[in-house]
């Protein structure tokens, strides 16, 4: 749970929150990306971008601790994730919230039960307090009153927002979003972008977003890394708006201008 510093977010931003050092990602012998080096600062909205199949989601899975890197390391506030003891690793993972691509709500549970599960597992709140907290989290994403619905009974956009409420259940320090606007209409996608910024400002959380939606990238991101599928490594990093005006790399230019400029 975020302490004290939440009151004054300004003090926290700029500190290294997650550092990736010399990381190589591979499934068995199949190399996904190599030589990844970048830093996510506290209070950043950090974008992981790149074309389809370049390993964006795989990088996210490595950052949240679902896969160990084939080489190199991921540091959280200075400590290497995979060198921590399993219980420390679990404690660290509880301070992260992940919004999966399809929402990944547990379909056999109601929305309230989905959000209540982490609260029941990891806090000593009474059932009444859990219920209040569940209603509050749902109201944050505009789903007040939908506690007793099953995921299959609500629309895709609502499922995504409910999944976000679940990701925020434990007041995480870091929120990860995998393709948040995939499958949403432009208006809903825009609202979700606004929500991401609002949550960063209000919660003081660090946010990592995997996306290839240019509108979202420029609207929310203040830092980024660009993964290239062909060379299997990162070829640009920094504020996406600055990248758009400054980068010389033809592949990045082509991506950021929807293929109108750059290579070939």
């Amino acid at each position, binding site marked *: 749970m975020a302490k004290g510093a*939440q009151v004054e977010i300004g003090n926290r931003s700029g500190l290294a929150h997650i550092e990736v050092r010399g990381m190589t990602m591979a499934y068995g012998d199949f190399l996904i990306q190599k030589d990844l080096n970048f830093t996510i600062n506290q209070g950043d909205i950090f974008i992981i971008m790149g074309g389809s199949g370049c390993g964006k989601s795989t990088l996210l899975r490595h950052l949240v601790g679902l896969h160990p890197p084939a080489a190199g390391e991921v540091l959280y506030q200075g400590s290497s994730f995979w060198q921590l003891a399993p219980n420390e690793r679990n404690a660290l993972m509880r301070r992260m919230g992940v919004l999966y691509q399809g929402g990944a709500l547990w379909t056999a549970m109601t929305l309230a039960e989905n959000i209540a599960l982490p609260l029941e597992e990891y806090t000593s*709140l009474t059932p009444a307090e859990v219920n209040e907290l569940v209603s509050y989290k749902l109201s944050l994403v505009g789903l007040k009153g*939908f506690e007793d619905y099953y995921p299959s009974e609500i629309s895709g956009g609502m499922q995504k927002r409910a999944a976000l409420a679940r990701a925020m259940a434990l007041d995480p320090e870091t929120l990860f979003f995998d393709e948040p606007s995939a499958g949403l209409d432009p208006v809903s996608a825009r609202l979700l972008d606004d929500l991401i910024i609002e949550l960063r400002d209000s919660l003081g959380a660090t946010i990592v977003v995997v996306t290839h939606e240019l509108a979202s990238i420029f609207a929310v991101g203040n830092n980024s890394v660009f993964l290239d599928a062909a060379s299997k490594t990162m070829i640009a990093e920094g504020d996406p708006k600055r990248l758009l005006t400054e980068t010389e790399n033809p592949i990045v230019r082509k991506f950021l201008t929807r293929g109108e400029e750059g290579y070939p």
Partner: protein
Amino acid sequence: MQSKSLTISYLTDNSVEISLLGDWCLTCEVVTWQSFQVQFEQYPEPPEKIDFVSSDLESWDSKLLLFLVKLDAYAQSRHIPVNWDGLPDGAKGLLRLATEVPERSGARRRTRTRSLVYRLGTWAMDGVEELTGLATFLGEWLLSIGRFFTGRASFRWVDFNRFLQSAGAGALPIVGIISLLVGAVLGFVGAVQLQMFGAQIYVADLVGLGVVREMGAMMTAIIMAGRTGSAYAAQLGTMQVNEEIDALRTMGISPMDFLVLPRTLALILMLPLLCLWSDALGILGGLLVGVSILDIALLEYLQQTKAAISLADIATGLIKSLIFAVVVSLAGCLRGLQSGRNSAAVGNATTSAMVTAILLIVIWDALTTIIFNRLGI
């Protein structure tokens, strides 16, 4: 107040100032809503305004927001204006988010208790629907078989071969082990009784007839219901969840031809063969007990078995196993196709496939045994 999480001051201009103090985190002890309310209402007149001071607030999370959301609703119900400016910026933002979208009217569920008549009626209608579903499925399946034999079914032989292998050769070890052990147990139980009359040689008859007419077909069918029927239900149920079956339908491919037919035909071809394998290993199990414990000579046991079993007995078992194959494969496919679109529904479909199959196996077995008995076969 039991903890110093806030103080309430009544100011001279008839307003109230709430100072938030210390830690407001989910795991911290803070003032309960009830005791806050008691303290707040000590003042006889409702205040004209509520202000906040948060300079001594050290940390906060959702716990503070829970309090603020309640306070917001409370103040609104008593028409007291609240000035949130004294709160940390983040808390103001979250409170705005939480109260921005009003609850959609009619969204909340009400639990209604229905009368007994209503529930009985629903139950009966569900039963009728279930039977209609079953009849429709059977009818479609028969039509599909018709299309198959006239060569008009969209049927993938690759799939069929794969199902043949998994429902046939893949099942040999488990069917073999269980049949061997059941044969041995049957022999052992029979031996204890028959030995008392010096008639231990008839263990061969008991095991032979028991296995060939009854146990072989039934054991195989029950194993295959657990092994293959439930797998069919889980596969089709998962395809239902992933909208794969809808994708087939929209391409004009009948799921019945494409998914159900290869599975059912594979099991119908393989189950009788597995039944023969089970018969052989069941007899072997009895033989092992007879030869090792009852000191019956190997050849003598085999002679006795051969004399006891007629071709009609074997055919009886095979006919049963053919019916069981239809029951097991259709129950699996039917429940899979009827599955709902979530993980729990797939689990229910699998369970239901097993239960349906085993229930029907036992009923059919009893019926056929009686029929064959009456016919003198």
